[in-house]
């Protein structure tokens, strides 16, 4: 059962990711991206990270993508015309992606080899959110506080940058 | 706070005073600067009077730890070699401030600060006995000079000239820094204590292979400063673009740091290498003499002509140093001072002409000696002194150098003496085109003669020009012992025979009984 669900999410997310890249209209790309995020949320569930799945849906699909859509709408961008003068760039991009993919496959193999020996028991931890919260507020308290400041900075930055120019 | 430290840092305090002073009232600023430089000069006369004549070693030595960890000490002191160079710097700083009274209009405050900083740098270089301290002052002296040329030079190519001057000297001094560090570590490894102290470095036994590289590194830095033949192209540019005062100080004092460096560092620290490089450096010096004189002949710009004449004169000095005998080196020391006065005065004179006519091309002048008779007499005296007319200061130094060179290698003297003829040719040709002939150009007719201030300055220079020529004994008595010390240090570890006579290294010439001696040796 889990296997089937994984394959569905995997295929759907890849298909929609490719569509996101190829779509002319930015809004369509945004929508495709939302679908990809949802599939990922499902995979998090499969991996037993319910809390993160929820956060994923809320934060990414909910907040960030809405923000994206909002900005796209604000700038009412027309379709991206295929800029003529850039065949060269596409070529480079294509080749680099190809090589990148191959390399990454190698790496994942390599990484996995290093990790293979440590397959711990996949115990499903009850109360995933409690565990995450407990860990978050003990061991990772400092990063937690730092991220709050980071968010504050981001807010101020966004206001200043996008604020009403005099 | 010993005598030397006061002299070195008084101008610095003066610079601070000027910095505080009111910007718009430029005359008060100049007055402060003049007062400070005069005070420094009078104190430095204390050095002269307190100097023990017969003693060749360092006197007035002050030593205070600076950075113990690295073994860097604040050690200063003078001997016969640096005594008169310090006096020259203090005196010429006074002359510089006086000469720049009317000359500099814009940014007077910064100008005076640069001048006083330059003075500190100059004196510091001549008095420091710690290699690190020497290098610090060497760089300190560079920056104000760069600013002097770059900011107050004449607008045409001053930036090019300033940058060229800076990069040329910097290139050389970086190599010197490397050499100093090598010396430092070698000193550490061979004697256990890491120190930059010059005196203890003198005692080091450096293997010949290392000596050669160190000699070349130090030598290059000093050769660029002298300037010797291949490295001299910065001098004409720096001189033509520098303000009058800038080129006076540049010619009179800064050029001497190169030759002083040879005497203070290259010869005593690396004797075997020095003896090895004598033919090379003497050769370059000879080329410098003849080349400088020949090229000076065809210059259309007076300042450029005088610059090339300095290349020729300093070629003599280097030849004197590398004759490696008492007469040659004492003559070289004297010629350094003479060149300071005669070329300094020449630049002052050209500056005065430039102030009146705002041009330096010889062709623009003609028949000035009728229009400005007082100016003509001073110009005549200085020209004759730079030609080396006996009775004036140039001759004593030049004759001793030629004598020293002749003792070591007669051929050197034969070529070097050619420089004496060429000097007469280009100086008199220039003098004739500027001063004689009829007053054909309209602007020359209305030039006003020297003001009282200008006469006072030139009188000071003329006094020393004559005094050196007629009675050089007090200077020679103080220089000779220190030169003998340096020579003895070179002789101890090289093939040269007894220090006093400084017999020629290779062959002895002419007289029968000396031939017999040569056979025995």
């Amino acid at each position, binding site marked *: 059962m889990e296997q089937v669900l994984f394959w569905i999410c995997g295929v759907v997310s890849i298909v929609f990711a490719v569509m996101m890249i190829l779509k002319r209209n930015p809004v369509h790309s945004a929508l495709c991206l939302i679908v990809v995020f949802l599939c990922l949320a499902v995979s998090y569930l499969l991996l037993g990270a319910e809390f993160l799945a929820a956060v994923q849906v809320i934060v990414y699909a909910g907040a960030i993508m809405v923000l994206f859509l909002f900005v796209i709408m604000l700038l009412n961008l027309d379709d991206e015309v295929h800029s003529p003068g850039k065949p060269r*760039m596409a070529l*480079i*991009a294509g080749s*680099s992606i190809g090589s*990148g993919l191959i*390399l990454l496959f*190698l*790496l994942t193999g*390599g*990484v996995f080899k290093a990790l293979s020996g440590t397959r711990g028991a996949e115990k499903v931890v009850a109360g995933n959110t409690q565990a995450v919260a407990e860990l978050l507020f003990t061991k990772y308290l400092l990063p937690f506080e730092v991220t709050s400041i980071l968010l504050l900075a981001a807010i101020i930055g966004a206001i200043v940058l996008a604020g009403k120019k005099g | 706070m010993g005598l030397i430290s006061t002299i070195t840092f008084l101008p610095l305090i003066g610079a601070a005073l000027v910095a505080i002073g009111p910007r718009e009232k430029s005359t008060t600023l100049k007055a402060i600067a003049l007062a400070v430089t005069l005070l420094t000069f009078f104190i430095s006369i204390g050095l002269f009077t307190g100097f023990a004549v017969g003693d060749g070693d360092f006197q007035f030595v002050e030593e205070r730890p600076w950075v113990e960890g690295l073994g860097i000490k604040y050690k200063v002191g003078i001997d016969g070699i640096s005594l008169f160079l310090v006096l020259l710097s203090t005196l010429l700083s006074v002359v510089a401030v006086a000469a720049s009274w009317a000359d500099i209009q814009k940014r007077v405050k910064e100008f005076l600060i640069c001048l006083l900083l330059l003075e500190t740098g100059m004196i510091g270089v001549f008095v420091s006995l710690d290699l690190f301290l020497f290098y610090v002052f060497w760089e300190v002296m560079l920056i104000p000079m760069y600013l002097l040329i770059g900011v107050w030079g004449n607008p045409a190519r001053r930036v090019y000239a300033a940058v*060229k001057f800076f990069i*040329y000297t910097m290139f050389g001094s970086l190599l010197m820094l490397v050499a100093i560090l090598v010396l430092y570590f070698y000193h550490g490894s061979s004697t256990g204590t890491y120190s930059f102290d010059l005196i203890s470095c003198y005692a080091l036994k450096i293997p010949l292979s290392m000596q050669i590289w160190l000699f070349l590194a130090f030598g290059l830095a000093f050769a660029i400063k002298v300037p010797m033949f*291949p490295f001299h*192209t910065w001098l004409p540019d720096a001189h033509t673009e520098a303000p009058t005062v800038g080129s006076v100080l540049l010619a009179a004092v800064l050029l001497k740091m190169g030759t002083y460096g040879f005497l203070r560092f290259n010869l005593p620290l690396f004797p075997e290498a020095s003896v090895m490089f004598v033919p090379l450096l003497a050769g370059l010096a000879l080329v410098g003499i003849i*080349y400088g004189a*020949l*090229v000076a*002949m065809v210059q259309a710009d007076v300042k450029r002509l005088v610059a090339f004449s300095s290349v020729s004169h300093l070629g003599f000095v280097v030849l004197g140093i590398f004759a490696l*005998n008492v*007469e040659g080196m004492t003559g070289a020391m004297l010629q350094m001072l003479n060149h300071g006065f005669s070329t300094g005065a020449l630049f002052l004179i050209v500056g005065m002409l430039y102030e009146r006519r705002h041009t330096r091309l010889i062709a623009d002048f003609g*028949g000035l000696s009728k229009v400005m008779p007082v100016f003509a007499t001073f110009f005549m005296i200085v020209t*004759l002194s730079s030609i080396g*007319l*006996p*009775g004036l200061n140039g*001759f*004593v130094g030049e004759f*001793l150098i*030629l*004598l*020293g060179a*002749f*003792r070591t290698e*007669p051929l050197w*003297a*034969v070529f070097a*003496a*050619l420089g004496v*003829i060429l000097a*007469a*040719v280009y100086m*008199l*040709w220039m003098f*004739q085109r500027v*001063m*004689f*002939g*009829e007053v054909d150009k309209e602007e020359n007719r209305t030039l006003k003669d020297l003001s009282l201030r200008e006469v006072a300055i030139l009188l000071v220079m003329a006094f020393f020009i004559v005094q050196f020529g007629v*009675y*050089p*004994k007090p200077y020679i*008595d103080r220089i*000779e012992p220190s030169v003998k010390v340096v020579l003895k240090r070179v002789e101890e570890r090289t093939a040269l025979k007894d220090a*006093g*006579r*400084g017999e020629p290294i290779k062959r002895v*010439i*002419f*007289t029968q*009984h000396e031939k017999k001696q040569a056979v025995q040796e």
Partner: protein
Amino acid sequence: MINYIWMVTLFPLIGVVLNGLAGVKFPRKVTGAIGSLAILGSFLTACLIFAEVLRLPAAQRTSEVVLFTWIACGSLLVNIGFLVDPLSLVMLLTVSGVSFIIHIYSMGYMAEDEGFRRYFTYLNLFVFFMLILVSANSFLLMFVGWEGVGLCSYLLIGFWYQRRAPADAGKKAFVVNRIGDYGFLLAMMLIFVTFKTLDFSTVFAAAPHTLESGGLAVTLITLLLFLGACGKSAQIPLYVWLPDAMEGPTPVSALIHAATMVTAGVYMVVRCSVLYSLAPLSMDVVAIIGCLTAIYAASIGLMQNDIKRVLAYSTISQLGYMFLACGVGAFSAGIFHLVTHAFFKALLFLGAGSVMHGMAGELDMRKMGALKSKMPWTYWTFLIGTLALAGIFPFAGFFSKDEILWDVLQKSTVLWAGGAIGAFMTAFYMFRAVFMTFHGESRVDEQVHVHESPRVMLIPLGVLALLSVAGGFIGLPLIEGGNRLKEFLVPVIALAGHGAAAQHGAHEAGFEAVMMVVSLGVALAGIALAWLMYIKNPAVPEKLSERLSGLYRLIYNKYFVDEACAAVIVEPVKNGSLFLWRACDNKVIDGAVNGSGAVMLRASRILQRVQTGMVQGYALGFVGGVIAVLYIVFAM
């Protein structure tokens, strides 16, 4: 009184200081007076010292007065001191005497010149340096006088600096002198290396046993010294500056280029007679060059039309005689001719000066003629001078020139023949000058109002004429004790005793008398030829010049020496240094320096291309970097 010798040189110095610095406000008379009195002072002191030395026995006549040490460095010790001995006294007397007379003369001659004060300052400075040169006690001090005199001749030749020609002539004189001084300088260094000192007394005392006679060292020293002498006394290679030196005021030519400065070379050779007698090769070189110069200069003198140029070439020729005398070892004869020449040559120059003064600056003899009636006093004094120069019996020139010719005959008949030809030519061109200016029909154009010079100029002419006549009697040949000058000089020249050819046997006397008549005859023949060509039928010179036009033009243009030396020396040096500066300095060295700067610039421009401005290009860089790192870390 001897140790007041430094007073002799001090007086002119006081004159220079007074006239030069304080004299701006003095009226002309006072300036002239100060100048002349200063020289008179030194002349009188010289006479007092001369009298005192005369009373001393011959042996102790040389003494040295040292003032202070000038340079004491290493093994070199030079002090400022003066040598009082017969030779220097003779020179002192001649120099101060003649210059005093010329000072008086120039008070009149330069009366209306606006550079009057400057002129007297320079003249006094010149006499100061000349007296130092003559009475120095060491080579170095003599060199000080040597170059000082060169400087003053530069200043005085270029006195009228407004005009271009004098300025050029001055510069030429100084440079050519400097070339001579180059030789002197090298000789001094050689002497110092050999003897460890530069003082005359020690050098000449040590010379015979330190230097091997005829050896390389002594020959080189003497030849270099002679090069210096040639520079100063205008001998063959370095005489080019003297004819141009006539651009200066005439009293200057009289003083510097006739009486004193040019004789400095002869004095130096005589002073170093000890060294020269040790180097026979150098003696021959001196003699040959002397003889050559005598003939060569006389030949050019034949064709000159400018009266001062004629006298200039005759000076060069007479100097040739003096060197000829020294070359054959007759140093005292050389000095004797030097002294007499100083008198009559100064007289001739001053005479020419007063002719110029009367003719409002006209120098070209072709525009003169029949001035005899208008300027009688000048004519008669000029005639006496010419007779003395030509070597006619009772006059000074006869005795001194004859003594030289006689001593030369002892050595080699060829040189004697040269000397005789020279004498013939001298007599010819001198009388040609006299006939063209004073006799024949007047070619003077009308508006020139010819007048006799003022008395202040004529008295000096008279005195010099008297000296030209009486001068000869201090060196009478044949009669015992007649040659008082030679006896007086013996202590100085005796040092070189064995070199001199002084064996006057009894039977020689008759032969010498015959030779005196022969030289007198040669001189008279010259005069007769001149009279024939310029008085009897003036057409002859034109006809002669057409027929030998090639030779005539050659001699007239002074053998094209000036143009040749300009082309051979001056141009190549100028172009060479131009090339040196342009090619070597600018292109090579500056090129390398700026080149390194340019290379840096070009390299940085290539690197700039990386900044394409394309954001994605940079991203590509990142990814590439990441891949590379991962590859290295994991796959390697």
